[in-house]
């Protein structure tokens, strides 16, 4: 369980995250939505301990994430940031194998190798595993990074805009994958998403943020509604239902 208490963070005196209390939904896919500058990425970084809070804290099963040993935290919580430009020339398999680093400390066992091939299989990259990342398309590279996080095999996995640079079919494949991983392996997956239709289809829970604050936490079916989205984005949004599925029309 991830709980947040009095969490505050400011840049240059401007508050970017200010959350008095929040309990992240356990299990399934939780989407964090909100306009640019709402503090979504910063919240994710604070949970993943990539940033130091200005006040308050993030608690993982009751223990402050800041008090974890680095490897212990890395065994329980994985995080993929947005910008994954690499200057290193690594093969896909090498990158994914690094996901096992917190578990095996550089000396992979058969179990680690099995986890790596399983992760490669999940993102359908087995055939490309010996290719160098700089020889792949942006979408393939993104899938390789997702495989690294899956190989890390943590209870919690945080993704900051994982659909960036993916075409429609790969974006759908990634969201399906995260959805099914959350379901079948009982993981808690938190994703920052901008495309509300993906949220409507694949998220179980929604955390809506604006100006550093959490506006609402609700099941996705409840959160994708016109008044909330209008309030969040200050723009006209039409939510419709067809064949039992929810669609968001944001094009004015």
């Amino acid at each position, binding site marked *: 369980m991830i709980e947040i208490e009095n969490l505050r963070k400011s840049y240059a005196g401007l508050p970017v995250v200010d959350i008095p209390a929040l309990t992240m939904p356990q299990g399934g896919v939780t989407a964090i939505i909100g306009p640019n500058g709402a503090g979504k990425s910063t919240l994710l970084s604070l949970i993943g301990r990539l940033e130091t809070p200005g006040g308050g804290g993030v608690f993982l099963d009751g223990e402050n994430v800041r008090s974890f040993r680095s490897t212990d935290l890395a065994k329980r919580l994985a995080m993929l940031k947005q910008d994954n430009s690499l200057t290193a020339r*690594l093969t896909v398999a090498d990158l994914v194998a690094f*996901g096992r680093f917190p578990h095996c400390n550089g000396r992979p066992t058969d179990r680690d190798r099995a986890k790596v091939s399983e992760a490669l299989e999940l993102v359908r990259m087995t055939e490309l595993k010996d290719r160098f990342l700089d020889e792949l398309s942006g979408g393939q590279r993104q899938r390789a990074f997702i495989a690294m996080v899956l190989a890390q095999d943590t209870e919690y996995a945080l993704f900051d805009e994982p659909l960036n640079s993916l075409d429609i079919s790969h974006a759908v494949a990634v969201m399906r994958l995260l959805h099914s991983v959350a379901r079948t392996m009982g993981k808690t997956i938190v994703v920052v998403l901008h495309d509300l239709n993906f949220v409507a289809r694949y998220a179980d829970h929604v955390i809506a943020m604006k100006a550093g604050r959490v506006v609402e936490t609700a099941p996705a079916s409840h959160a994708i509604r016109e008044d909330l989205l209008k309030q969040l984005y200050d723009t006209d949004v039409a939510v419709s239902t067809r064949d039992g599925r929810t669609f968001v029309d944001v094009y004015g």
Partner: protein
Amino acid sequence: MRLRAHIPMTNGAQSDLRHLRNALICGFVLAVLSVASLLVGATGIGLVSLMSDPNAWDILLISRVPRTAALIIAGTSSAIMGAIVQRLVSNRFVEPSTMGTIDCASFGLLLGLLFAPNAAPMGRMLIAAAGAWIGTAFFMILLRTVPLKSPLMPPLLGIAFGGVIGAMTSFIAYRFDLMQSLSAWSTADFSVVLKERYELLYIAAAVTGLGWLLADRFTLAGLGDNVARGLGLNPLAVLAIGITIVAGVSGAIVVTVGFIPFLGLVVPNLIARWRGDNLRRSLPLVAWLGAALTLLCDIFGRLVFHPYDLPIGVTMGVLGAVIFLGMILRKFGR
């Protein structure tokens, strides 16, 4: 290929076989170069002279064996240090000489010579390593505070930084009449290597071995701070360890044989093109190519103006510059 037609083999066995064959070829090349390095010089040594002439054994044991060992260790360590700093900085164009490391080691050495002229070689090495450590750490802090967009900026910054330190060193050396000692450190020359005058290089070898053990951590640190932290690694701690290793090795090399130009730049880049940057995979080849190129350049230097020696700083300088220009033209010509 023919073998595969007759004996059914698993993929793993095939690649094992290929690895074995490659390792044998690499080992053979290195063995030939080492033997050549033992035999070639102002006084040629051969089987006949070893059997009949006792002086030949003296030359072999006092000069040639130490020289060959020094070449292999210095070549291997310099190439590996290049590979490690390239991961630590995430930049292909840095190596100890384009980060100010070598200039700061020389500066330390000069200060040591001025203030503790009677220090033992070990003491001198430690002073040089301390200078290298401070210079490298300063450069790393500079890179982390000033974000640089172009991949060519870090080495240019490093060269400028090294130039400033180098100018200070020259000035002081000039005032105290130490210019000759200074040029001895800054041009690599293995003709000075004799028994009991190169053993500090074994420290460089040991420290390089330590770096090898930590290869995974350096590769991981090269994936960026966020990824490294996410996988439970403290990037700053890895950086500090890396700086210490590079400074120690650079200090030992500068004190004994002098810095070999271009090696740390060219070798890791050639290997990366083929084998990638995962140090665990690439370091054996980096080490091998570093040793082989160093031996080759030194043997060539002993032969061109026979019986005189051309320092390796010159031969490697020319060869390295040509390879490096070729790489840059290919990279930016695409």
